């Protein structure tokens, strides 16, 4: 189910997580999402569907909200907020 991004939500950071990084997509996201204030969101760009599913499952478990999921070419974009 998709929830519309509220106009008031500001993207605090766009994270390009398509490449390899030591903390991995979840590690990178966990650090950044803890920082956001109410009204802010993080846009994560992910390189494959399996990673997107991991991110959505992890975020849901941690109590973050998925405000948007979309495709961008070969990538998957997920917008998350607290």
């Amino acid at each position, binding site marked *: 189910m998709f929830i519309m991004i509220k106009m008031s939500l500001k993207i605090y950071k766009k994270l390009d997580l398509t490449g*390899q990084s*030591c903390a991995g997509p979840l*590690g990178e996201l966990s650090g950044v999402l803890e920082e956001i204030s109410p009204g802010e969101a993080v846009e994560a760009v992910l390189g494959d569907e399996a990673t997107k599913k991991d991110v959505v499952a992890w975020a849901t478990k941690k109590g973050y909200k998925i405000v948007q999921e979309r495709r961008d070419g070969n990538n998957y974009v997920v917008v998350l907020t607290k």
Partner: protein
Amino acid sequence: MKRVIVVGGGIAGTIVANRIARTIPEELEKGEAEVVVLDKSDKHVYQPGQLLVPFNVQDPVELVRNERDILDHRVRFLHGQKGEVTKIDPANHTVVTADGVSHTYDYLIIATGSHLRWEEVPGYKDAVYSPWDFDSALKLREALDQFSGGTVVINVAKLPHKCPVAPMEATLMLDDMLRKKGLRDKTEIVYTYPINGIFGIKTTNDVMIKIFQERGIKVISPFNVTNVDPKNKVMESQEGEKVKFDLAIGVPPHVGAKVIGDSGIGDKRNWVPTDKFTLRMKDHSNVFVIGDTTDIPISKAGSTADFESYIIANNVANEIRGTGLKKTYDGSVFCYIATGVDSATYIRFNYANPPVPPPPSYVHWWGKLMYNKLYWTVTAKAIV
């Protein structure tokens, strides 16, 4: 005359300044260009060696040298109040130092590094030893000398932190050291990490976690530490776990330098927004960012800074000369991973290719020690 200012003379700032000097020696000698390194300290600390100090593999005295001795003679170096940057102002192409002087630049390279914010986790500073801090690494060495068994917890407070593989290394070196001292049977080692598993990259995690299992190391993850009780020696997590310990070794939360926050040029944790390919600061094409300072989702490691230095030095030199090809960073990282006090493996990867560590061996351990030794004479001086 074109002026290149490098803020921060740690691993990244030193290598990139030396590499630029070696790329445009004539321009520097003729006074057509100038490279200036600004650092508050005149000492250079080789932090990777701090990890080996507690295990008696590294003499701490060898980890500190005079920055002037490492810098190419063509590079100007200002330190103390003259080198401590209090404001970075990309809109006006200036940086201000603590002595009140405003320095203008044609190209700026920000290399102010990552720093520990212990106080983010109440009790951490009082209860946890950390090789990420020079003094704490020395204290940990003493504590390990006196250790006679019990529970040791290894903790990573927050991601990202510098040298992402180092917590695994500390754990495996500890395990090996305790085995060699005959204390392993009397010790439980517990590894706690903020996300599932023991490391963020799946291919590496899968190999390393097997080694942890073989060595009887207990893993609790995800474990996001909220506070540590120094009196009762208990570490608590957001997930509701409580771990009682006799000795705790950890990685405190990291942030970018204070001057980044004071100048209003970073994100909420003072990391500077950086293009992951060009290494230019977002919206400021004559400002480059290198090493731990960037917000790029990549390892904060000396080797990362070394790889990045080729791109920045090449592009700055070519822009000064008005010729040549532009290079881009492919996300290359190389890290040795100690798997004991005489064995190691490594990971080598970039944005496109995930790493799979080879079987641990003495050869890679030797490589790790050599890499550290050659830092002063080869890597820092940008000889290769």
